[in-house]
């Protein structure tokens, strides 16, 4: 090989290592490796001692036959995901997007900013605010209104209706992302279409039905899948607000795995439970990838000269 070509090849390799190397190392070490570890861990018997003594299918056996709490967790997960998704993340988000684009732009932007507050605040602060609002004694914000305005006895939402609380808390967060995406989609509808509809005689409701909603079909399906996945695996707010309680009353599947591992010390079992979520996650990620417009992201590179 002539010197020039060899030097170029060497430069190519160095560049590859220099530019992509760090990313590859970081991703493999802390993203890909854990997936593999989880796979292996699910088949061990690791407990509090953090030592592996044997490989076994015991975890899965426990999961499918002996674990009664699991069924409860599955039920709670189902109610939680379906309600939050259906009521807040998609429907309410759509409503917010439609309404904030129908009022003058500055006002719309202001209200959208307000609805972004929950998502933009640190989770601890947001959870703290919720705890204050639903505080069972008279100091809770909600109870102040209930007692002083309606004259009713104070309500204890945390203990009596914990599921409602986490649905609302997660719902506010979920609605804001959908609101952003739907608003951006609405804004990209060519204005002439609206003008044409107005001149054709359509009133506001008809315009929403015939011009706005058809253009939102794709964002809505994407959001539904994306948010379903997100609701299935995230438990941060639930952990902060109710810690999964009282007892296990608001423990969704993902939180259940976490609690089994870190509260009860059943690391292997927790890994096995997480494995289910990992599989769902991979499948959903692939499905969403199929759905998304990959052409632009996979555009061919500009140049080949090193």
């Amino acid at each position: 090989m002539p010197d020039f070509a060899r030097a170029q090849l060497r430069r190519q390799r160095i560049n590859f290592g220099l530019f992509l190397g760090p990313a590859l190392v970081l991703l493999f070490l802390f993203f890909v490796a854990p997936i593999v570890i989880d796979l292996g861990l699910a088949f061990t018997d690791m407990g509090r001692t953090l030592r592996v003594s044997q490989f076994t299918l015991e975890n899965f056996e426990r999961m499918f036959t002996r674990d009664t709490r699991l069924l409860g967790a599955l039920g709670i997960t189902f109610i939680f995901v379906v309600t939050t998704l259906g009521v807040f993340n998609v429907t309410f988000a759509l409503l917010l997007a439609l309404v904030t684009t129908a009022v003058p732009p500055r006002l719309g932007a202001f209200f959208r900013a307000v609805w972004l507050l929950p998502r933009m605040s640190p989770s601890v602060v947001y959870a703290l605010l919720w705890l204050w609002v639903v505080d069972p004694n008279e100091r809770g914000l909600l109870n102040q209104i209930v007692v002083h305005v309606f004259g009713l006895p104070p309500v204890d939402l945390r203990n009596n209706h914990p599921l409602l609380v986490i649905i609302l808390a997660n719902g506010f967060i979920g609605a804001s992302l959908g609101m952003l995406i739907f608003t951006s989609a609405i804004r990209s509808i060519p204005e002439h279409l609206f003008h044409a509809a107005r001149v054709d005689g359509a009133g506001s409701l008809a315009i929403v039905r015939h011009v706005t909603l058809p253009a939102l079909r794709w964002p809505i399906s994407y959001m539904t899948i994306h948010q379903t996945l997100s609701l299935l695996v995230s438990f941060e707010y639930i952990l902060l607000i109710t810690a999964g309680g009282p007892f296990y009353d608001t423990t969704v599947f993902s939180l259940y795995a976490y609690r089994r591992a870190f509260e009860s010390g059943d690391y292997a079992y927790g890994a096995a439970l997480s494995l289910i979520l990992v599989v769902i996650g991979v499948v959903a990620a692939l499905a969403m990838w199929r759905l998304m417009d990959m052409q632009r992201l996979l555009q061919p590179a500009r140049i080949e000269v090193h």
Partner: protein
Amino acid sequence: MAAVDSIAGGAVEARADWQALARRAWRTRFTGQSALLAFLVVVSVPILLPYFWMVVIAFTARTGGVASDVLWTACAVIVPAVLIYSVVHMSVGSRRLRLAIGITLVAIAGTLLLALVGGKLHLDNFRFLTRANFVEELRTKATSGRQFPSVWTAFSNSLALALSQTVIILTVASLAGYYISRFAFRGRNVFLQGLLVLHAFPAMTLIIPIFLMLYWIGLLDTIIGVMLVLAAIELPFYVFVMKGFFDGVPWDIEMSAMTDGATRRQAFRLVVLPQVRVGLIAVAVFAFIRAWEEYIFVRTFLIENTNWVMSLYLFWVADDVMGVDYGIVAAVAVFYVLPSLLLYVFCQKYLTQMTIGGIKG
């Protein structure tokens, strides 16, 4: 021709009463907009009120009390002021007049507030900033044997975590994003697809194996460990973002730099990087805020209280003290939120530049 007649003749019947139409149009437009606005206000109150309450409590509450009277008084002053101003805004056309009315309203509301609640304002709740053992002072004994570090320890830990994570992300994502944007290497498509899958993949499911891995490596309970994990998890997203920014830089700039004698790396450093300055700032701010607000990973991976970050600090303070003193907790919360809030407000226009394939993050 029949078609022509029916079409031409039809217009005669449509000669309408223009006055009535105009009146009806004005009415529906007014009621429609008012209804929409009312709806927005009603649903936004449950969000605004708690935040406002938190700020109020931080500055007025005393041990054992919650100072809700201050809150309602403040609302009673502010809400009518806002309502009056919005009516004025919609009916008065002249911008100068609106500004004048607005300023007078603010002045009136301000003096009213000062008169009514000014006396109750105090900074006592912020004593956690100077007195490290405020928890023991509140409870006769420290609960669950937990010792509280100084808030400044937590603050500096948070700062260290956020800054180092940001630096790592900026470097790694820029390098990788640039390479993907410019070079057609073998496996590029596979790499991109892999990144996409990782990006869509929910990282929280991996919290248990990551915990174990950190334990085995020996990085459990260290800021470095958390920082590496956070950086890795967010990386796919930021690589795409940086790639997007690099895609926007025309490659003839680099080509002319290279024909001028620069190597690839020099061209990258001297010519291309300055062009994506906006992207770099956006990524830096976003990554910083994200790390500042992180809770679940730090909770799982950090154990010793000298390693606490602000989010953990706030959580445990609330856990210990909330039944007794709302004020301090609120004050800590306000202190915690301030940096990210300031960043948001001042870097707004950078943050809105972030896109990934058309979907703004």
